[in-house]
């Protein structure tokens, strides 16, 4: 993107970090943390993805416009998730009649 040439050592440190995080996510998967498992797995994946985006894809060194485009893509995906789950999670909440006590 930019004319900026990224020094090689950054690539290698990012590569090492990605390998470590992959190992970590597999390691953590073998513990039963209940719903926490998913959260941890997703957080690690987000960290790995951010590393790839910022350094391998040079977004760290590029114009604000690129940041806006990347941010917009992620934000619109979150809109889909938010409103889809807004419906799915509350689909069973019916306004029960006052004084409901079984049929």
């Amino acid at each position, binding site marked *: 993107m930019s004319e900026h040439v990224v020094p090689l050592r950054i690539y290698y440190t990012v590569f090492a970090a990605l390998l470590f995080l992959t190992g970590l996510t597999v390691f953590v998967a073998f513990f039963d943390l209940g719903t926490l498992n998913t959260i941890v797995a997703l957080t690690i994946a987000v960290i790995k993805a951010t590393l790839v985006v910022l350094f391998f894809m040079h977004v760290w060194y590029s114009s604000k416009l690129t940041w806006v485009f990347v941010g917009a893509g992620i934000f619109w*995906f979150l809109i889909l998730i938010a409103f889809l789950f807004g419906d799915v999670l509350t689909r069973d909440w019916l306004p029960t009649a006052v004084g409901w006590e079984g049929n």
Partner: protein
Amino acid sequence: MSEASSPLAHHFDDLSQQKEATSLGMWTFLVTEILFFGGLFAGYAQYRGAYPHAFEAGSHHLDIVLGGINTVVLIASSLTMALGVHASQLGKRKKTAIFLLATVALGLVFLGIKAAEYTHKYHEGLIPGAGFALQGAERQQMLFFAFYFVMTGLHAAHMIIGVVVVTIIAFQAWRGRYSPAYYGPVEVTGLYWHFVDIVWIFLFPLLYLLGRH
């Protein structure tokens, strides 16, 4: 994006405008890819929330070792691609081609492992549809495998396109087409490749690491 002779396209004022436009164009395309895969991830998330039991049982059928190896292979290919772009920025013709070909090789390894997994699933009768082996109460796992095959299949399709494009760019880099002033196509192909790697970074934990305890 430009004629063989001078790299500057007729409708651009200068090379830097062309470079910025090319990169912005690829980033816009990657935004459409985020939402393309996003629709799948949204469906996957809803069904996994509704049927955690069926998804965990389905995930146990997957081979975690092969998945892990594939993740490492793809991360390595991202590194070689980044080094390839780095080399083309510095005008090193041969190094760029070598790194890009390394990326292609790693991509082919990934596709090979993927093909092995698919044939394994075929023999186990886990391909969703008429021939799905599990019946009765277990049949709901077909939803997991439906998402598994659509998501990894779509990802593999993107890998194949990536392998073809990177091979072409590697060949052109070998012929000295790119220079420190004109390396847009190499970088843009790199962006695409890194995106495909990021999709796998999310696919691996969501599909392979369910309920492993």
